[in-house]
């Protein structure tokens, strides 16, 4: 127990040096590590820091301030849209030549029902409808073999000449997955365009998106940026419909009434069918119109430009509406055909809203509506206070434990205190090196670890004391103390580690930070208490050859 092979010595030394190197950036001020420009650190490191780890520990949002938001995809809406889409696909499929005569497919809950007028057509219709059930690309093999899951299930019923079309669970799962992925992409584009630093945007669970923006203390801005679907389309206005002040009117089929962002004309009737949709936009920037009012200019892709050109050519003198998320932004009169594929949207804008709209259009529409379900924001003041309080608490706790150990164990207390100091360095180094995030509960975890870390040394020292009293020689007592205490140390720390691991899996933001520091602290404290303090004791015994143990 008291003999250390050379490679073990080097390993121990190596671990300590690594701990020092990785934790150093947390102590050295940022000006010493990075080139500064206008009081802000740049990406360029200074001098020797280019060769060393130069980043300090990542602080959680509760310490550095910022907004943490979780959005949920409205799956009900996604499912409704999908069912609507299915009924439309079914209608198109049945209209193909030779057309099969059916009434419009009915939607009952999540099911589309097609009633075939002529019983002889049932099998033909059934065959025809197979084309709308596509394989889901879970993996290439199952698609080729035709055995994989499909987007919908089609069931015919000969008794009443109906065909039921149901969305499969696999299809819904697939849609959900893709919806979340697309949402993450769109949100990332939107937030990046907003110019925020280091946002985290990631799927969480199977229908949520996590958005973390450090330094942003106004979550409302993010909610507006993310919560807007930004589905834009261009529609012809129907001038024949008279809309009442309450938004009510008798509408012919295919015409809908949307509110307009204009007090002079609060509602407006437009064709449901879009001339061009926002998907065909390639570019949108905020600009001003001829009279200097804020506006947004846009450019279509080829398909969009052709469709828009044709529509404006046919409808000179008529009005068309620009609709964003079921609200009409403006409804200008077409003065001349717009053939170049680009135009300008004027509306009730400020420079800020025009800029936001251009960001939203540029980033594309969200596949579904997102609702914030969790919002946690910490202002910069509170975060700074927490850091300062945490630092003082760590120092006071550390000092108290050190004094305590000195009083209890004298010389051996010095060994355990050195071990404890190295322990704190290793925890900080590991947190920094592993890129873990330090949160406020994480600081609590460090303080708790400082208190509990000496446990292993206490176990050992008590054993040594006991063996020494039983009449063993110093070397023998130390040897026996370390070897006999080992099983209790391991058992005790493994059980605490289990608790930390469970806590990590529970996994809610800041509390996770606590689990991480606790787990790291357990590993480092076993190393420092059992290995490092043993080395120190061994060196001391070899150096002084004591007749009795001062314990």
């Amino acid at each position, binding site marked *: 127990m008291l003999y250390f092979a050379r490679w073990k010595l080097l390993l121990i030394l190596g671990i300590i040096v690594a701990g020092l190197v990785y934790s150093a950036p947390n102590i050295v001020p940022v000006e010493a590590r990075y080139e500064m420009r206008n009081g802000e650190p740049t990406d360029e490191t200074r001098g020797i820091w280019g060769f060393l780890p130069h980043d300090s520990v990542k602080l959680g949002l509760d310490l550095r301030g910022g907004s943490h938001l979780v959005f*949920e995809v409205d799956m*009900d809406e996604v499912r409704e849209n999908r069912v609507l889409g299915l009924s439309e696909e079914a209608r198109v499929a049945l209209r193909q030549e030779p057309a099969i005569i059916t009434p419009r497919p009915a939607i009952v809950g999540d099911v589309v029902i097609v009633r075939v007028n002529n019983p002889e057509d049932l099998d033909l219709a059934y065959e025809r409808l197979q084309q709308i059930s596509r394989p889901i690309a879970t993996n290439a093999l199952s698609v080729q073999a035709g055995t994989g899951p499909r987007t919908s299930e089609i069931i015919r019923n000969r008794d009443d000449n109906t065909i039921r079309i149901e969305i499969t669970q696999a299809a819904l799962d697939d849609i959900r997955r893709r919806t979340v992925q697309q949402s993450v992409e769109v949100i990332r584009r939107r937030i990046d365009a907003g110019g925020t630093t280091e946002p985290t945007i990631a799927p969480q669970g199977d229908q949520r998106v996590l958005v973390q923006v450090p330094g942003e*203390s106004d*979550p409302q801005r993010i*909610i507006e940026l993310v919560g807007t679907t930004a589905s834009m389309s261009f529609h012809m206005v129907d001038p024949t419909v008279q809309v009442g002040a309450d938004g009510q009117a008798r509408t012919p089929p295919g015409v809908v009434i949307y509110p307009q962002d204009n007090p002079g004309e609060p509602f407006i009737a437009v064709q449901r069918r879009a001339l061009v949709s926002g998907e065909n936009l390639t570019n949108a920037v905020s600009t001003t119109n001829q009279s200097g009012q804020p506006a947004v200019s846009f450019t279509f892709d080829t398909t969009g430009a052709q469709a828009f050109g044709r529509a404006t050519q046919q409808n000179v003198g008529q009005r068309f509406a620009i609709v964003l998320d079921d609200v009409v932004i403006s409804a200008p009169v077409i003065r001349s055909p717009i053939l170049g594929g680009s135009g300008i949207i004027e509306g009730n804008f400020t420079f800020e809203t025009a800029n936001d709209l251009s960001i939203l259009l540029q980033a594309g529409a969200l596949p579904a509506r997102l*609702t*914030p*379900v*969790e*919002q*946690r*924001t910490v*202002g910069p*003041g*509170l975060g700074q206070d*927490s850091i300062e*309080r*945490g630092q*003082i*608490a760590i120092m*006071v*706790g550390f000092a108290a*434990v050190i004094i305590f*150990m000195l*009083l*209890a*164990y004298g*010389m051996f*207390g010095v060994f355990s205190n050195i071990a404890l100091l190295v322990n704190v360095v290793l925890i900080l180094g590991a947190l920094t090196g592993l890129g873990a995030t330090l949160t406020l*509960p994480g*600081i*609590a975890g460090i303080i*708790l670890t*400082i*208190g*509990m870390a*000496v446990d292993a040394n*206490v*176990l050992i020292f*008590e054993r040594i004391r*006991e063996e020494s009293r039983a009449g063993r020689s110093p070397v023998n007592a130390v040897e026996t103390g370390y070897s006999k205490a080992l099983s*209790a140390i391991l*058992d005790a720390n493994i*059980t*605490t580690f*289990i*608790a*930390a691991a*469970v*806590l990590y899996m*529970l*996994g*809610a933001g*800041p*509390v996770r930070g*606590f*689990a991480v520091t*606790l787990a790291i602290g357990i590993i480092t404290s076993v190393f420092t208490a059992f290995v490092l303090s043993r080395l120190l004791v061994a060196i001391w015994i070899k150096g002084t050859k004591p007749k009795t143990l*001062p*314990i």
Partner: protein
Amino acid sequence: MSLALVQFIPDAAGIPFIKGRVAAFILSTVLIIGSIAAYVTQGLNYGIDFTGGISIEIQTDGPSDLALIREIAGELDLGDVQVQNFGAVDEVLIRVQAQEGDGLEAEQAQQAANLRLQEALNEQYPGSIDYRSIEVLGAKVSGELQRAGIIAVAVALFLMLIYIWFRFEWQYSVGAIVALVHDVILTIGMFAVTQLEFNLSTIAAILTIVGYSMNDTVVVYDRIREKIRKFRKMELDDLLNLAINKTLSRTILTSLTTLVALIALYTIGGPALEGFAFAMIWGVVVGTYSSIFVAAPLLMVTNVARESSD
């Protein structure tokens, strides 16, 4: 020459812990019944993590006028609103209950309520209010967190049980788990009696207490097992007593260093960590007690095997 100035526990302390087991069992039973009674009658003061709702921490210029803020928030008709000082006289914590609604509608109502509250506050204190933290949680997320918390505690207890079963025999496993459940119930009881906020970090504290108490119990059990192998003829109660006494100074020392660190956290760490630190302080005391007076004497009840070769 000894530098050890303080020797906390005399070496051959022969404190008859096991003799006191009947008294300890009665005390524990009374505390457990009391905890359950407090839980049933008073319930827990759940934080926003578990109930959903809005929690806003603000800082005003100079001491805050709680009555005025209460009035402003009350006029918005948002249901139950709590306004209290938080840490300092110019810092206020405003809590609003979860808003009603179906599915995602409730979440939207929540956001709307949050905006209205902030608008009303800004109107009263134009430009002079500092929002230190804002938390808005819907019923959905809070329900999930609640479930996750319960599952986490249950899973942790179960894994401990399995681990001890592997390392010791089943008698130890039962004793350890009874002691842990004892600790968890007393901690929850303490939160019911004091009405301290019970939130996610409380769950973290409970899990850590479980780990800590287990740690203590394992050390005592480890010593008991060692003594059982060594002294095959000794009466079980004497043997348990010997093991507890032999580990006593370690138990007390570790508890004290942990308590010292936790007291630093409690007094300096700020209001956000107060609840956590308080729970941990209580848990360390209870966990230490339960290792000595619950876990070890229980081995007499489960009649631990004496002739084990393990």
